[in-house]
């Protein structure tokens, strides 16, 4: 039995906000903040050039895990610091970005590999498929618990760098990267200048899964087909991890990119997000675009939005 699917912007979310949502995350952030960051940088000459220096980085996050990333910054001989920072957060099955192109544009850019991604998976590796449903009936051990913190800790890494202007820190990503953009902008709302989130995932989890059979949300449908009695436990966990509950904590300007034909992250959930974001919001909703969220055209919008708020100076060509 089917019903007509209403326009995406008429959707009303089923997400609830737990009374102790802020306390839950404040406690986790406090736990992470108590750990020394212990940042490490190793030059990667193979991925560097006359304009950009590339480093493999590591830092410590929740539970003492060492988190990897790529750090690309303008070569000082080509462009003097300070640089604005851009934290680039990865999609679900994507490899962490080696952000050389952003560095050429003038950013000191970090491509984060949260736990479970390659190079950060020695102690936590639920795999793909797998991460989305890892301990999904327990908020205290759910797979995204440390994952969200790992992205937020990248802010601490950029704040440890003297070549970075700490008053200009942006965050950007699509899909899961869009979700991490939102959680990072919320958990580090004291220092994030702006964020650009494309086709945000982990937003209205339960509603999204009911609107699609595409992965990754299909992992939830598979789980519920097998364990239907666990639906309420799942919902109770996910309410602590839903970007719709992080969004009111965000105060910086945000750009949200939406594909109105997105089967992976249904656009209904993105419109729910627009309703609850705490700061100023720009958004572009692209008809007939899917999980690309209009990337062919939207790329320039994202670059322009970030540049308006972060004021990078492109590295001159040599």
């Amino acid at each position, binding site marked *: *039995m*089917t*019903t*007509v*699917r*209403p326009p995406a912007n008429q959707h009303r979310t089923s997400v609830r906000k737990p009374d102790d949502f802020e306390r839950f995350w404040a406690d986790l952030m406090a736990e992470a903040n108590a750990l020394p960051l212990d940042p490490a940088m190793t030059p990667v*000459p*193979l*991925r560097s*050039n006359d304009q950009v220096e590339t480093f493999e980085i590591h830092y410590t996050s929740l539970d003492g895990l060492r988190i990897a990333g790529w750090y690309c910054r303008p070569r000082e001989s080509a462009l003097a610091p300070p640089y604005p920072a851009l934290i680039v957060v990865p999609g679900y*099955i*994507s*490899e962490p970005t*080696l952000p*050389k*192109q952003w560095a*050429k544009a003038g950013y000191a850019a970090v491509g984060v590999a949260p736990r479970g991604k*390659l190079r950060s998976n020695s102690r936590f590796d639920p*795999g*793909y*498929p797998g991460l989305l449903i890892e301990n999904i009936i327990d908020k205290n051990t759910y797979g995204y618990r440390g994952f969200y913190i790992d992205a937020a800790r990248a802010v601490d890494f950029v704040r440890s760098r003297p070549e970075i202007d700490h008053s200009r820190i942006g965050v950007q990503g699509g899909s899961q990267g869009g979700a991490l953009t939102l959680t990072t902008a919320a958990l580090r709302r004291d220092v994030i200048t702006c964020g650009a989130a494309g086709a945000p995932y982990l937003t209205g989890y339960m509603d999204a*899964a*009911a*609107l*699609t*059979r*595409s*992965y*990754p949300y*299909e992992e939830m*449908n*598979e*789980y*519920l*087909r*097998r364990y*239907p009695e666990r639906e309420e436990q799942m919902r109770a966990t996910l309410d602590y991890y839903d970007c719709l509950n992080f969004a009111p904590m965000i105060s910086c300007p945000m750009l949200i990119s939406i*594909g*109105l*034909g*997105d*089967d992976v992250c249904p656009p209904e959930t993105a419109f729910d997000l627009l309703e609850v974001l705490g700061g100023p919001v720009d958004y572009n909703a*692209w*008809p*007939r*675009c*899917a*999980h*690309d969220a*209009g990337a*062919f*055209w939207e790329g320039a919008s994202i670059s322009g939005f970030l540049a308006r708020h972060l004021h990078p100076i492109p590295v001159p060509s040599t």
Partner: protein
Amino acid sequence: MTRPADFDAYWEAIDAELAAIDPAPALTETPLRSTERSTSYDLKLTSIGPYRIFAFLSVPNGEGPFPALLHSPRYGSVNNPPHWDDRQRYVVLTVMHRGQRLADTPFAADYPGLLTLGIESPDTWIYRGILADIMRGAEFLLSHPSVDPARVAIAGDDLGLIAAARRPGFATVNLTAPFLYRILEARLRTDAYPIEELNDYLAMYPDAADAVANTLSYFDPVAHAPSFQGTAILSEQDPGALNGPEWLEPLRSALGGPVIPYRLSHEGGTDHDALDAVLAKQLRVSPLPRLWPAAMKTIR
């Protein structure tokens, strides 16, 4: 790109290596991904090396034979399991080549890094093994008893085209985006990964340029294309762009069978549904638009 004098011998040696190794298929049903409409399996196969690779297999429930679809692995550590829509219509096989997750013991690929691993020689380049892995998956799918041998397709980048050229039996190739095609020219027009890996490598090792070109010549899709006699669905970018119609013309001309060009609109929903419909027509099944027009109350 010049076809090497020992091109055929190079590929026949890979075929011989594969033929000499028992694929030892091991199927394990995965109830989590099985439904009343299809049954899913984890599959392990042995490829050259010997190396144990992994694949997701899904078979529609009911009376076969069914059309079949091989998903060639993407560039990256993860491939999604077959999509619900495909599992209803096709026997679907998604191969994880050596180094990708689920096929990462003992070798785990680096990203970036995989593209240039061993590229100084065609005998050491990692893609020699990767193509063998895809062909091993093709052999499994083409011989599966539930598969209608007249309706088998392969989808993905030009690794899929090479595999189809080497393993007769594919009626259709859905070439969604080139990867190795004209890559030494493409690298001069982009700084995006993974092609940027070649720029990194050749900047670090400029003396290796001739060796790299020689290695790539064995994998030139244009050299393989005449051997593929089926129908090729060819996605094209805008005129003048990388992978636009002029850029793809040498490949189109070299293909041994009919070509169905599709000009990408850059609207992901439009393009998905159009390409799904073209492939469905080739394999004589119903198209399935990806975005559901109605909220599915019975999804689970």
